[in-house]
């Protein structure tokens, strides 16, 4: 919990570009956050704002947070499903306790900026129908590092 307090403090005082967090929105136990991410400048998402939902388990930061985009505005991106789930390796297999909310936001921003074609993942319809509510339960198959 100390670590989450510090992260929150750092994120409000010195946020990475485009990332804003409203401490008012976050409950007292800090286990669930809502973070706003602005579509990066000179990308296909410029001018849009997205909201990310972070859930932290008791084991955070040794256990990765559960991160999804919140409705209604879910970016159309080849690695983001229409239910808000994100296919990003640092959120599961490549998580490290040295990562933070800020670094996750940065990774997502960079994922958005490198996108060249706004479209959903090819298996979107099937995945959204069959997946678990928790994206960490999905066995992600990371294959495309370019976007």
């Amino acid at each position, binding site marked *: 919990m100390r670590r989450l307090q510090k992260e929150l403090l750092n994120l409000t005082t010195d946020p990475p570009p485009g990332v804003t967090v409203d401490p008012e929105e976050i409950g007292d136990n800090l286990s669930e956050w809502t973070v706003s991410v602005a579509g990066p400048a000179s990308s296909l998402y410029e001018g849009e704002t997205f909201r990310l939902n972070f859930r932290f388990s008791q084991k955070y*930061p040794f256990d990765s947070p559960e991160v999804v985009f919140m409705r209604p505005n879910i970016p159309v991106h080849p690695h983001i499903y229409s239910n808000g789930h994100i296919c990003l390796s640092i959120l599961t297999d490549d998580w*490290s*306790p040295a990562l933070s909310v800020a670094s996750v936001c940065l990774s997502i921003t960079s994922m958005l900026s490198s996108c060249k074609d706004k479209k959903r993942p090819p298996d979107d319809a099937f995945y959204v129908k069959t997946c678990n509510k928790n994206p960490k339960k999905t066995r992600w198959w990371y294959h495309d590092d370019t976007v």
Partner: protein
Amino acid sequence: MAQHGRSAAPASPCLAMDSDGDLQYDEDSADDDMVYDNDSGNESSGDEVDFDEHRPGPSTAHEVELAAEDAPFQVLSVQEIVDFMVVEINEVNEVAQLPRTTIRILLNHFNWDKEKLLERLYDTDQEQLFLEAHVVSPHITGTASQAPRVNSRVGAVPTEECEICLTVRPSAEMSGLACGHRFCAACWCEYLTTKVMDDGVGQTISCAAHGCDILVDDETVLRLVSEPRVLARYQHLITNSFVECNRYLCWCPTPDCGYALKVPNPDCRPVTCKCGHKFCFACREAWHDPVRCHLIKRWLKKCDDDSETFNWISANTKECPKCSVTIEKDGGCNHMVCKNQSCRADFCWVCLGSWEPHGSSWYSCNRYDEDEARAARDAQEKSRAVLNRYLFYCNRYMNHMQSLKFENKLYASVKEKMEEMQQHNMSWIEVQFLKKAVDILCSCRVTLMYTYVFAYYLRKNNQSAIFEVREPEGPGAMHLRCSQSIWSGTSLRRTWSTSNRKVQDKYRYCEGRRKALLEHVHEGYERDWWVYND
């Protein structure tokens, strides 16, 4: 005969010394060989001569194969596995002169193949090797690629911020691997505990820093983790990966048996664990001589999938004499009308002949021997031949398996007999022949059981015909005689010494036949006699 005394194999492999210094007897102990040679003037020696004629020469390859059964192997406890691991590391260390922890990670990277590691160490680019194995090259001194951000005002204790808990700590509390990423002791401990307990990772825990794939060595884990529960699990994960990666080691497949077996050559061969389980080192199934691993795998799968279904089909159904669809009759009279829309055959369930001549005798059939009915049944028989062939072998195999389970009872009653005999002035050593007889009885049963599998997959040719002819008079008879002799032997109380002699003759004969049978099959492997179905 495949007697050890006479075969090309040295006598010593019968005894294997395990690392405790205990002597481990393989099933053919030395005294056995001596008695064989003394055998004379009874039926068994007569048969042996007969078998001798089939034998090409004393030192053929298939005998070597049989002798491989007796080649030494070791049963290792968890502690002995750890010791063995240390020995392997030390051996490499003597040559390579690298830190032990590095050698352990390198060896694991090469699945504990020392030769391969040493070859790579001296053949190619060492730095590339360290990169692949995720270790920092020990040749680069002052490796800290990322200098710790030490906050050192004059006079103050140097402090650093831990990137995980985001607190500032005295530098003395901070530590890291050769990659230079430093975290506080509490975070390291939590990180390693999570990896070991939740993710079940042991040998391949990487540095906690993001994107750093340098592996955490065992000394670091032992230094940073103190909870015994976690350390025990870590130890378990390490030994487990060691055993599973190492071609010369395997766990005993018995549930909850903690022993591992170590062999000099990872071939198809029997090993016996301390828990008593005898299994094939190559496929981990119960020892299945004379069947080869791939066939026993197929057979076991087939039995799992099919046998019950086939049994039920065979017992409860018949096929339509016209369209061969499988029919279950669950009531009513004998007049059957095939439900298959394109068939609609009228026939009698009893004789399978057409219904017409039966007229109104709905419940009794008097036409069983009519030509037409007989022809229909013949056709049915043919279509069932395949099924029956399988069931023939499967049922025999299953019966033996079932009987093996009951052999425990026999052991119990023989033990009783042995105690009784000891009260009749016989020494402990003198009554051991009875236990030996049951041992042989069981091993004959096992061999016999697997010959059915072998025979099932064998395609008909001259050699398979010889095998099928020899087989029933071989183990089948030997089994019967063996069990009879034990019982006759145990019931003749007044003539202990003669019955003793009789039982021993019998079991030696049976064991001889068993070995001859196995040898015959192995010889067939050598000479490519056996052709398999599909």
